[in-house]
């Protein structure tokens, strides 16, 4: 398999997992930069230009809420899970565990 093809399959595989990871990380309020660093520290690195549009999309879907807040004399946009997001995250985690155990059996 070529490296390009593997990379494309890997990205496809990660895409859905990233949303789950972002929602899970946002149980605690964070702003974009720290969120990206936390994700990277946990082995879920995300491209610079990808995270913010994803956060906006999740917010427009009602899963996140955000606010501007001053920190270290700079305005930063902080995100956290909305009540609907919390509920969705629980459902997604349950689904993830189901998929994971099915895959474990298959693999």
């Amino acid at each position, binding site marked *: 398999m070529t490296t390009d093809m593997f990379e494309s399959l890997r990205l496809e595989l990660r895409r859905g997992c990233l949303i789950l990871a972002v929602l899970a990380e946002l149980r605690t309020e964070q702003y974009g930069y720290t969120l990206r660093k936390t994700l990277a520290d946990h082995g879920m690195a995300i491209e*610079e*230009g990808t995270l913010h549009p994803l956060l906006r999309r999740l917010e427009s879907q009602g899963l996140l809420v955000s606010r501007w807040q001053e920190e270290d004399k700079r305005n930063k*946009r902080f995100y956290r899970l909305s009540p609907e997001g919390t509920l969705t995250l629980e459902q997604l985690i349950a689904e993830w565990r189901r998929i994971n155990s099915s895959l474990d059996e298959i693999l």
Partner: protein
Amino acid sequence: MELLDRYLQSVKWLLPKEQKEDILAELSEDIRSQIEEKEAELGRRLDESDLEAILQRWGHPMLVAQRYLPQQHLIGPVWFPVYQFVLKMVGLCYLVPWLLTWLFLVIFVPSYRAEHPGLALIGSLESFLLIVVFAFTVITVGFAFAERSKILERWSPRKLPVERDPNRISRSESIGDLVGNLIFVLWWVDVLRLPSVEPLRITLAPIWTTLYWPILLVALAAVAIDAVNTVQPWWTPLRSRLRLGIAAAELALICILLSVRSWVEVLVTSGPSAKIDELAKWINLSIGVTILVIGIVTIVGIVRGIRRLRRPKATLVGVLSA
């Protein structure tokens, strides 16, 4: 920070209007945080190449902005392959023959070149270019409309086309070919005569006399194949080979016919000779274009015949046992 400002300005231009400032403030903040962290790590202010590396990782401004925009396309991935196929078909079946006809006129018809000297020859392609633009626009608009319609949601398996057997011969096509070839043979052996239009008299050029028997034999062979195909409408290896042989003979005759410049002589009992010459020129031109079109159709037939023969044998036999 000039590079950063330039970068943000380029992203801003493409962002959705209502969120422009908000998105830009957030992006700017994120990049600045990254810069600060890098400066802390290096223990110095970033130079232009450091900043360039950071911005490179963020990606082209157009790419960054595009991620904030709703996905838009004129023709989506579902319709695109069909769109591409239709464009290719129109190109192959209409535009290529058009272009070949034009090339034929340019190469073989001196009067056409005389009427379009120099750059005017390229100018004579104007209508072709208009047809290209028109065909492309109509097809694109049609597919853009289909993309936005709910046509794919209203479907039933019953309405899907019947599976096409590549070895089945359309009976109506065979009958059409048979009738056409029969009429030609009858005319060729002088049983059928076209009504004469006085004072016009058209006589065939000597090339037709030279090729009288080969043309008759090829036409009779085609009549025989068409007759068998009408009764037994499927291709067998033998008939496929015979049809291919006939098509090859047809092509050879067409090449010989195209090697001359005049196929008929026109005689008019009265009228100015300049007009008679003009008339003869246009009649010959029409015959030349017709022979060329028949040649193209024959080549297509040969290609199809070769592909039919190259198919695995089981496919040909399968029809016979069905």
